[in-house]
């Protein structure tokens, strides 16, 4: 007697965030096992990077993670700087902070829409995707591209901010803060939202630590771990911000953490713009690209992405090409160690919003 049946969530399914497949086995409407099936976005980044010069890899790395590419650039730049022993200029640090936070804010805005979409509220999805576009406009102004910026380089940033950009940025921050009130009214204060997400897919503090969760999952479980605080990079050590935490560890807490992180990012941008030195170099000069040899060594550089700790393990053998680059994406752990366990016992109706609340980003897993 076959009690269970199997369903594929993805790759061609709206309930999956990206090109990824989740095979779930259900009994009635309850999930009894979930197996992730990655590899639909596998492009062999790590292999490709071994075959390219450091300068060429700049074009490759943002494509590792699509919704928030700047973290890759930052981690890559930091790893190279670490190996070469380069200290970047003060202004570049602030610009990096601003860019990273802007990307984070854009990512959370995007996430919000996706999350509301899985719960059936398409209005917020429409609003927030539209609002995210204004952040992309700002990126387009500093580097010419909306999605893949290639702006943060080893040694600083590619070029100085265009004149008047800070004002536009502050305008965006102000606009987003106003919009956040609308978002709250339609979604975060919505009774139905609480009804659907409270107590769903709980990751307790102990579980989160044991399973190696980072980012919003850990914060929602009550642990204030954040690379920006613990191991400050860019200009975070000069800035004043708090790490929000909640204790429930359920889907609702994770959503609220992200909503507060969005507000946090906007505040950090405001501060950074205020504190940033108005003049100064933004790029420590690097060698000629073809003679750009990085000293032999191994290092691990990490940044805080919207999903958690994002790191590059870089090995150099003293030539112009990296010997080995290993990428650590937060989703890797979140999907296979956490989501597969958390989904068991949940309802089919909740599967897609749990996946989005854990913020699984497939390109980061597949690379």
């Amino acid at each position: 007697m076959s009690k269970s049946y199997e369903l594929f969530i993805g790759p061609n399914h709206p309930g999956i965030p990206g090109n990824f497949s989740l095979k779930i086995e259900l009994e009635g409407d309850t999930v009894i096992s979930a197996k992730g099936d990655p590899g639909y976005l596998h492009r062999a980044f790590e292999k490709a990077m071994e075959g390219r010069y450091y300068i060429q890899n700049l074009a490759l790395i943002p494509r590792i993670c699509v919704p928030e590419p700047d973290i890759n650039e930052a981690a890559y730049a930091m790893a190279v700087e670490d190996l070469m022993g380069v200290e970047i200029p003060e202004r570049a640090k602030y610009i990096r902070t601003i860019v990273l936070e802007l990307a984070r804010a854009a990512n959370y805005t995007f996430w919000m829409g996706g999350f509301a979409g899985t719960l059936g509220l398409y209005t917020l999805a429409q609003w927030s995707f539209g609002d995210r576009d204004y952040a992309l406009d700002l990126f387009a102004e500093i580097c010419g591209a909306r999605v893949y910026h290639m702006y943060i380089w080893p040694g600083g940033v590619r070029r100085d901010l265009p004149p008047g950009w800070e004002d536009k940025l502050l305008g965006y921050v102000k606009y987003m803060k106003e919009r956040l009130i609308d978002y709250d009214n339609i979604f975060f204060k919505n009774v139905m939202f609480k009804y659907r997400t409270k107590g769903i897919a709980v990751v307790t503090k102990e579980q989160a630590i044991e399973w190696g969760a980072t980012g919003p999952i850990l914060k929602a479980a009550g642990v204030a771990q954040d690379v920006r605080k613990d191991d400050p990079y860019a200009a975070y050590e000069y800035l004043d911000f708090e790490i929000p935490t909640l204790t429930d560890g359920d889907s609702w807490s994770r959503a609220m953490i992200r909503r507060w992180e969005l507000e946090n990012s906007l505040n950090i941008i405001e501060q950074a713009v205020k504190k940033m030195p108005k003049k100064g170099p933004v790029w420590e000069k690097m060698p000629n690209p073809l003679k750009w040899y990085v000293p032999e060594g191994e290092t691990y550089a990490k940044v805080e992405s919207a999903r958690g700790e994002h790191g590059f393990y870089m090995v150099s053998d003293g030539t112009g090409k990296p010997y080995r680059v290993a990428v650590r994406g937060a989703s890797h752990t979140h999907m296979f160690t956490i989501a597969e366990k958390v989904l068991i016992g949940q309802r089919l109706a909740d599967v897609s919003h749990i996946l989005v609340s854990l913020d699984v980003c497939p390109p980061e897993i597949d690379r």
Partner: protein
Amino acid sequence: MVKMILIAIVAPLLAFSIGLSFMMIKRKVVARIQRRYGPTIIQPIFDIMKLLLKEDNISHGVIFSLGPIIAIAGSILSVFFIPIAGLNMLTGSGDLIALLYIMAIGSLGMALGAGDSANPNASIGISRALTLMFGYDLPLVIIVISVALQYHTTDLSAIVAAQANGHWALWSLPLSAIVGFVVTYGALGEHPFDIITAPHEVATGPMVEYGGKHLGFLMINHAFHLYVEIALFVDLFLGGASNIFIFYIKMFAVFFIMMMFDEVLPRFKIDDAVRFFWKWPTVVALISLIIVLVK
């Protein structure tokens, strides 16, 4: 006789065009709520025509193809039992109680067709649809009984006639009217009750394997369905109408209010939806029923 045949042809067309106009307006209004420009107003016509004109169609079996046909036949049948603007086409052949079951023919056909598509997504969708129907049927039945007792008849045209000159059931049975409004949401599968087709959960549920002309038929059926549900509400609580324009205006008013709530609510889980229907709408409807009984 000629008049009968004429009515028999005109009534479904009229119902279809009213339903279609609601579909058109809805897409535009929803777009505006979502801060978008929205499609051209006649976009649903393009969609339906395109689907009907697909060169290739697939079928999983006879029942799969019959599903949408039975759905449309059932919907057309129920159109005849709803008096519109003084036309009482077949209201003498079946009353309100019969209508409740006639309206189920289409759902049953749809359910059979979707079941034959051999896809668990479709099966889950149907399971949800039937469960939801069970959910909203309880308050629906109670308000139907209250209206029938209020006017001492189950004949819809008599109910409409009794509400002439502004003596709407909305005024005499306000609580039932509110419940009826909520139930209409459930019956139409609007947010927050769009559990049946929820794309993120079951990939459009029953429609998962339907494409081409089958899907076109389902869209046509949706137009009829919109019409039937809202027209029933108007006939029960807003006193029907003496001519088609007033009838349309009343229907539009109901639909417009529905759209306003539609786009700001996430959807229920199916068992929560049933619990919801069996809690407040049922209690309120019962209070209204007891008031009628005592009166």
